């Protein structure tokens, strides 16, 4: 097998992967950095799709403590508080860097200073943005910035598996070139995993379509612990566009922040029943579940959704503040500035992921994880605007850690037989067989129906059994048609990873016998602080999922303290 060698191999070109590359080289410009991306660099992943914006404390009237309190309250006290503190304390410096060094240009106040808008679940208007399509600005400028750096980009190549050395340290990864179907090995002293989350395993979902939880799946197979895997966020305002793939894409949170109303099929502002104080500006977990319950109770809109109405905010204001959203709705024949729009909850972001420390280190020496692949930062629910902050802050941290680590780490040897085995396993799908797309549809429906907004023991047990069946059926899948750019083949490989991650999600969800944040059990509908200020830890051993729990450490704020402050 062909071999490439790097000091640092970064996997993924979202906010986390790009920032890791930039900061590894900022720390030491002589490092050899490889950046491998499943899609096109800067064009794949969810960071580019960020709409509403970026939470960072910039105003003297705001404070990092407040941002921290909002984040912990939003996360229902499940967050790893040191990770959350890293997020809020370093976000301002990243925004500064993006503007001053990378050349982003965020929206301004009339006096020329950076404008910050209102987002749900926050006690201060702290969301930095460029209109309503902020991610394009951040990712395309970071991508442009890379043109000036000596990063070796491996585009449209997917990492199939991580490789470990004989003493368990990271040794590199096995790569599959989508364009040619060639499989190779990239050796590195340090590997940064930043492939984004697995929310695409749900029938309605927001993320970019190539994402399939690859990073988390590979980390699981490498033996790492995952935390909070049951915590999958649904965004409340997904578009309904019938059978189009646009269905499930979102209308951004800033609309609710700016005062848009949600109504059920009877015309009631139903949030009054679920969170009378914050109403539509409540956190995503609450609003999504409220909408779901309204729909389930038969009080939905004709298209199985609820109504989002921004028309009373004034057509001019909506057109000026949300041009991207207005354009998107126009595409499906709707006028966001003047009429209510049907929306549905849609799978959005995985709070769970690989356990890391504040340096992005894992239990495997030399293996770092950053961004959505990592767990713990957001607890049971992520605040809007904390996602891109997460990926860029922890991407930066991972880059810094990587640069430091490789000074002392040797290049580990890998097992060639193992690498060959990975290649053989991946190419076995190049045979006659059934279509992977049908099986994918089954997985997505299963997860939506039984591991979605409302869960119970029966449904979760059913899901666990069905996952085994789907996994077994994967062995009948075949995609003849050659290696080069074969989408069916990629889909089969995506399925493998999604199933791996889904199993841990189901096991975690079964284990948490309470409701908290995004995780709602119909059979345990109450939050139970007495038993469950604990996080669920999952791992794979000999093909079996192991589940344990550990107490959350309240290193900065104890439960109830935020509420007591306000």
């Amino acid at each position, binding site marked *: 097998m062909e071999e490439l060698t790097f000091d640092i191999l970064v996997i993924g070109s979202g906010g986390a992967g790009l920032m890791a590359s930039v900061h590894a080289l900022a720390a030491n410009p002589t490092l050899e950095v490889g950046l491998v991306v499943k*899609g*096109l660099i800067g*064009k*794949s*992943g969810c960071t580019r*799709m960020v709409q509403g914006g970026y939470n960072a404390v910039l105003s003297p009237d705001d404070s990092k403590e407040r941002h921290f309190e909002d984040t912990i309250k939003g996360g229902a006290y499940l967050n790893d508080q040191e990770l959350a503190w890293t997020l809020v304390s370093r976000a301002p410096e990243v925004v500064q860097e993006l*503007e*001053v060094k*990378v*050349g982003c*240009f965020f*929206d*301004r106040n*009339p006096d*020329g*200073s*950076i404008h910050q808008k209102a987002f749900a679940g926050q006690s201060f208007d702290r969301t930095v943005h460029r209109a309503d*399509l902020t991610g*394009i600005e951040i990712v*395309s400028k970071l991508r442009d*910035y*890379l*043109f*000036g*750096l000596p990063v070796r980009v491996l585009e449209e190549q997917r990492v199939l598996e991580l490789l470990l050395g004989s003493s368990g340290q990271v040794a590199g990864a096995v790569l599959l070139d989508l*364009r*040619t179907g060639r499989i190779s090995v990239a050796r590195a002293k340090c590997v940064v995993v930043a492939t984004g989350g697995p929310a695409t395993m749900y*029938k*309605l979902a927001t993320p*970019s*379509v190539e994402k399939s939880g690859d990073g988390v799946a590979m980390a699981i197979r490498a033996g790492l612990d995952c935390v909070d895997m049951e915590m999958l966020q649904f965004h409340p305002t*997904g578009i*309904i566009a*019938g*059978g*189009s*793939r*646009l*269905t499930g894409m979102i209308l951004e949170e800033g609309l609710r922040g700016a005062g848009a109303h949600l109504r059920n099929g009877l015309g009631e502002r139903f949030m009054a029943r679920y969170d009378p104080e914050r109403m539509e500006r409540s956190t995503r977990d609450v609003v999504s579940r409220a909408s779901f319950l309204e729909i389930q109770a038969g009080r939905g809109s004709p298209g*199985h*959704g609820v109504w989002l109405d921004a028309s009373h905010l004034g057509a001019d204001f909506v057109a000026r503040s949300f041009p991207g959203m207005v*354009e*998107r709705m126009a*595409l*499906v024949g709707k006028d966001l500035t003047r009429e209510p729009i049907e929306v*549905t909850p849609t799978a959005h972001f995985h709070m769970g992921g690989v356990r890391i420390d504040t340096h992005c280190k894992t239990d495997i020496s030399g293996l770092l994880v950053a961004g959505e692949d990592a767990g713990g930062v957001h607890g049971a629910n992520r605040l809007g605007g904390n996602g891109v902050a997460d990926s860029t802050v922890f991407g930066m941290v991972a880059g810094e850690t990587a640069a430091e680590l490789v000074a002392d780490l040797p290049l580990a040897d890998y097992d060639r037989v193992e690498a060959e085995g990975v290649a053989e396993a991946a190419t076995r799908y190049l045979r006659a067989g059934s*279509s992977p*797309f049908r099986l994918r*549809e089954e997985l997505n429906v299963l997860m*939506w*129906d039984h591991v979605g907004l409302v869960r119970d023991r029966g449904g979760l047990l059913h899901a666990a059994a069905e996952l085994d069946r789907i996994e077994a059926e994967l062995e009948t899948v075949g*995609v003849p*048609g*050659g290696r*080069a*750019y*074969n*989408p*069916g083949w990629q*889909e089969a490989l995506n399925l493998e990873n999604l199933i791996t991650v889904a199993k841990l999600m189901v096991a975690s969800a079964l284990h948490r016998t309470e409701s908290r944040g995004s995780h709602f059990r119909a059979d345990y509908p109450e939050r139970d602080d007495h038993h469950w200020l604990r996080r669920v830890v999952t791992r794979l051993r000999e093909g079996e999922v192991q589940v344990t729990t550990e107490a959350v450490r309240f290193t900065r704020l104890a439960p109830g303290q935020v509420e007591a402050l306000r």
Partner: protein
Amino acid sequence: MATAQETTATRTLDLRVWRQEPGSEGQLVNYSVEVPPEGMVVDALFAVQAQIDPTCAFRVSCRAGICGSCAVRVDGRERLACQTPLSLVRDRVRIEPLRHLPVLRDLVVDLDPFFAKYGAIHPEFRPRPLVAPARITAAERGLVERAINCISCGACYSACDIVGLNPSFLGPAALARAWALVADERDADADARLHEAVGENGAWRCHNLGNCAVVCPKGVAPLLAIQALRRRALWRS
């Protein structure tokens, strides 16, 4: 639970899709697929993949007009497949890859030549020494606003006949990016960039055909940027 994606009605669409194996000649192949009436062109391609041939290759990532991965030619016109409603296309529609770029497979083109030219104008920001974000009013920013919206989809590159005639012409997108930086008061290297952008293969090669502005899905109007570069160069010399 029933979800939003369940549709009852579908529409039968006759597609003619460019299929091309690596290293061989391509051809248009007919497919008849059931598509959701609210769908986009990309939904029709997904339908081919799911209903007929899982190897039918096309690029897609965000499916929402954000990433610029999915540009193809629909009945000869460059468009984002994910942003072109099927309600606007005829019952018999032709889908082909972008022009002026090598086909990797089917609708997937090799964008390397496009990005090589984009890289040639040094798209990376070179900041003036600033310690804090510059205070800039929206009005001062007007000059760059349009050009900055580019999502590097390559539609303009395909639509530009000059790119076809003169393969070394930098093309509309690269020049629009050059303008965005030349006009950015925070950038330290405006003169050097301007020099590159109006150099041998730059702005003066453009014949003002304007196809770039017609096809651009983001209203970038590269032609205006090219004209602005020329004007700036003229007054500087």
